[in-house]
């Protein structure tokens, strides 16, 4: 009897050891085999594993052919992206992964899909950590922006996406650009190509004296207009109907199919860390071919939404926009949890149905990082609630969302798409 129990104990121990070994350290590689012989385009979902134990790893790049159903996991799957923060951009069918190193140079990794729809690293290059980047012609324009009045310079770099290296660079004196009596400096919220020019909306900030991000000019919008690729300042256009356009690391300017640029203001300018703007969160317009705000166009989003302000947006097409809204203006950086469909041309706003209720939402993907289908009928956004992370498919025509693919073991930071290269 004793011997027998020893025998079983031994078996159990052996089994335990075996399972312990086999479950070890994700040595399995699901990327091997099982590939579609006919190369299909791939959606790239970047997911960041956890919050507390995030461990200095930014994201895992997961690829899938379908966003509308099923589930995908970071467990033993996905391309590891180190860094605390990463940002992504797809341009010319290449996927760029930017390491954000808060003032320190970091690697930018370029990927494309090979003929078997498998993500392949093309190259690495070293770039300064920038606070704004966007495609302009065949380049990606990147700008590193000072937040210190003692060295009021923004450095720009033109990245050739074919060669994956920098072809030109220069600097902008942001204090001179802001041209304020109190010496505030300009900080570009983002970059938007409008026609053949580059529009850089900016906010002004004290960049000193313990109110670094505060301003004494909370009630104005400014856009610096540059030629491209020379990057010479052509003009600065102003408007005093709204506060500044965009937000830190957030695009606030989109161009419709007519070439008209629409400017989104969250109205969250602060002075001494309190929201000080008297303006309402609104949309204004710069008509194609002009270099001034269209004084006939003002869409007050706070009025239209019943008191909510816009934190971010995704331009869909034909004047349609997905806006993300939040109720209380507590900080300049809070992200919204309510989604609305905005029609810029008709100045209407309708809440989107079928999404988790706002109080359950823990995080959402940025407006820039949501994915708009090629035919502009659907928008895919990533939402994390306490029960997990899902991609929701918003149907523009019906203004309703349906739950799509579940992303296990991570918050969704961006959704992109690449086509295979022959």
């Amino acid at each position, binding site marked *: 009897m004793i011997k027998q129990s020893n025998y079983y104990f031994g078996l159990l121990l052996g089994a335990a050891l075996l399972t312990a070994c086999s479950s070890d*350290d994700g040595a399995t590689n699901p990327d091997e085999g099982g590939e579609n012989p006919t190369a299909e385009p791939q959606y790239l979902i970047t997911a960041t*594993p*956890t919050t*507390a134990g995030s461990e200095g790893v930014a994201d895992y790049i997961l690829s899938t052919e379908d966003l509308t159903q099923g589930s995908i996991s970071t467990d033993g799957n996905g391309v590891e992206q180190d860094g605390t923060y990463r940002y992504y951009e797809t341009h010319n069918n290449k996927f760029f992964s930017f390491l954000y190193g808060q003032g*320190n*140079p970091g690697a930018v990794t370029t990927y494309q899909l090979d003929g078997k729809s498998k993500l392949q*690293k093309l190259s690495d290059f070293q770039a300064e950590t920038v606070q704004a980047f966007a495609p302009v012609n065949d380049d990606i324009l990147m700008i590193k922006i000072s937040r210190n009045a003692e*060295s009021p310079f923004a450095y720009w770099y033109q990245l050739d996406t074919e060669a994956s290296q920098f072809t030109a660079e220069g600097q902008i004196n942001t204090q001179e650009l802001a041209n304020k009596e109190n010496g505030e400096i300009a900080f570009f919220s983002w970059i938007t190509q409008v026609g053949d020019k580059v529009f850089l909306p900016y906010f002004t900030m004290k960049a000193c004296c313990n109110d670094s991000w505060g301003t004494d000019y909370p009630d104005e919008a400014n856009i610096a207009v540059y030629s491209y690729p020379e990057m010479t300042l052509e003009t600065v256009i102003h408007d005093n109907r709204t506060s500044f356009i965009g937000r830190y690391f957030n695009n606030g300017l989109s161009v419709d199919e007519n070439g008209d640029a629409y400017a989104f203001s969250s109205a969250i300018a602060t002075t001494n*860390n309190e929201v000080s703007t008297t303006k309402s969160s609104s949309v204004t317009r710069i008509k194609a071919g002009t270099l001034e705000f269209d004084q006939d166009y003002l869409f007050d989003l706070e009025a239209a939404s019943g008191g909510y302000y816009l934190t971010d947006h995704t331009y869909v097409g034909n004047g349609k926009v997905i806006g993300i809204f939040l109720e209380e203006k507590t900080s300049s950086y809070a992200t919204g949890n309510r989604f609305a469909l905005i029609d810029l041309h008709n100045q209407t706003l309708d809440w989107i149905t079928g999404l988790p209720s706002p109080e359950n939402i823990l995080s959402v993907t940025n407006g820039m990082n949501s994915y708009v289908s090629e035919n502009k009928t659907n928008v895919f956004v990533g939402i994390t609630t306490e*029960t997990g992370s899902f991609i929701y498919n918003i149907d523009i025509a019906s203004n309703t969302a349906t739950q799509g693919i579940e992303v296990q073991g991570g918050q969704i930071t961006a959704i992109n798409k690449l086509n295979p290269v022959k």
Partner: protein
Amino acid sequence: MHTIFSRALFLLCAVVCSLSSFSQQNQFTVDGHVRDANGNPIIGASVIIESINKGVSTDENGYFSLPLNGNAQAYSLNVISLGFKQKSILIDSNTTLNQSFDIVLEESSVDLSEVVVSGKSIVNQVKEKAFNVNVIDAKKLHNTTLDIGGALNRTSGIRVRESGGVGSDMKLSLNGFTGNQVRFFIDGIPMDNFGSSFQLNNIPIGLAERIEVYKGVVPIGLGGDALGGAINIITNTFKKSHLDASYSFGSFNTHRSMVNAIYVSKSGFTAQLNAYQNYSDNDYKIEVETADLQTGEYYPNEIVRRFHDRYHNETVIANIGVVNKTYADQLLFGITLGSNFKEIQTRARADSPPYGGLHRKGSIIMPSLKYIKNDFIVKGLNARINANINLGREQNIDTLHRRYNWLGEFIEYEGPGGERSYSLYKFKNNLGIATASFDYKFADKHALALSNTLNTFNRKGEDQLRPDNQDYEQPRKTMKNIIGLGYGYEADNWNVNVFTKHYFQQNKFSLALDSETPGELMYHKRTNTFNFLGYGLALTHFINDDLQIKASFEKSYRMPENEELYGDLINLEGNIDLKPEKSYNYNLGASYWWRFKNRQHLYFNINGFYRDASDFIRPVLNRNQVMQVMDNLGSVTNVGVESEIKYQFGNRFSAGVNLTYQSLRNNTKYEGGQTTESAVYRDRIPNMPYLYGNADMSYTFHDVGGVNNSLTIGYNMLYVHAFYLYWPSRGSAEGKYGVPEQIAQDLNLTYTWKNDLQFTLECRNIFNKNLYDNFSIQKPGRSFTGKIKYTFL
């Protein structure tokens, strides 16, 4: 001049008296004192009665006490110590009742290299305590060019992780505990914060006599809040006058020298002087990705030389006082003076661009007091009191507004600035330590221990570049006090220790918040106070003469260190919110000694451990990944095993292997407000080696080129299994960041001439393998060093 060792291995059998032969009646004791012809006490001499298999060793003052029963009529008492002739004394239970013997041993010309391990040296006496302890006989390593850290790296269960060459930051991992979970002591004094001029990475091995490595539960006598273990470096014991000097020169323009002098007069006056120096350019080659500063293009796998990693330090330790007086066994006043200079080459991550100008200067000015008295006030009460304060300064210099690449090229930016942050910050940490510990053997077999350790920290600094910055005016103060009380019972073949500890820590600091006056920050003073009670138990049992088992348990706290709270201002960022780590630790181990044939010995040791920790403290990268920062991880468990085998053949050949495996797992089930199980629940904690080991071998040729001259060839191998930098379960294995398997092999050759003069040639990392540490920072490749050591006295 012979160093004293014991070689009587059979004493192991003897010292643990078997219960069967034990008789209560007619018990008496043979007491005595063993000394050499000059009157110096002989420590660790074996006092044995072979006929009844009983024996003891002399204590650190040369005394022994051997209890016997009176049934037999007469015994032959043998006294053996290495370097001395054996002496036999006839004792008779009827006539020599409770008599005290004064035994004088004559020196013999026995070959010193007979020494080797085994036998019941102090080394083994410590090992036999209930605590799980490894003892490194440092004297055997005196011919190497190792620093203390390098010596520890060869011990089972230990991984020393360093960020580069000479003088680089060292972190220790011991059975899954890292960094400051393991505390360091020098002669029982916590060396928590001796400043950068006196650390593991720059103390030469020659300063140490032996190093005790406690794993898991730590004796009360070593106060402090060691959680994962403690390392106690025993320097010298003031036995007699001594003078030696050594110098070594090696690759990367590395020079090290050391003078070690001790004078002990007959009257008990003693003076000690240790002076040592390390210098290295550390310009070893590494394989990195280097970027073109203009185009940003990366050139992977470039072999470049490190170009900004020079390090040097100079330290003098002087002690003066008396030994062996009625009022003090040791009363020493000392001062440690030193300076160091360190260029900082890398950020926390290997693939980040290097620094080309950032450097650190530091000094140490540390007066100290040491007092030891056995039989203090009453017989059996031993007292030990230590105090020191470090008044040294450190300064960070970062005034080049540049960005470098690994080719040493740079871009210069306009205006003032630094590579990391424009700084000439100069600071003093004002570290003070006072310890007092008392052991009281109040009855036969019963002992009490009481110990108290007080640490203070008060960082004050200024930066001439920012004279008005209020931030430097803010308090950065910590006071920590740990008091422990223990009771020990020592029976013939088992002993037990129970203890309790009280932990107190108070941190005073400021939080910068917005004030009501617009545009100004208000500093809000804050005080965090921690009060905890821990307890534990350690026991050991000799199943028979050669087989020992040990078990221990402790509920323990690990308090945040000053540098973890306030930063070291090099590559560790402060985290004022760091919480104490609490853990339940269980250890179970067994050791077996086996002698066979003629002069062959085998030693086996295996130790299993289980730890259940909450608020586990571990290093992660800070937000911009330029520095490391210590962070709490909710809940972590660790199960592991470490084992060691040693073989010895006479005084010619020895070999050993040790291997450690640990399974450190994340035990935090829910994170970030989610109700679904965390994706990394039960995942292995990343960026920590989990399977590693060492092998070593040495062979000695005797009488090479003359009598008393010997030649020793030593070999050492280090193995570390590959591990991932980030959570192992996430992402596909292809392209995952990690540190590959590492194997490094070292060879050394030592020629000893007439026991006075030693020449050593050492080659480390002979196959020039890429070795990595700390977030994959690369370590030196193959290096050669020559060393000469002369013992004058």
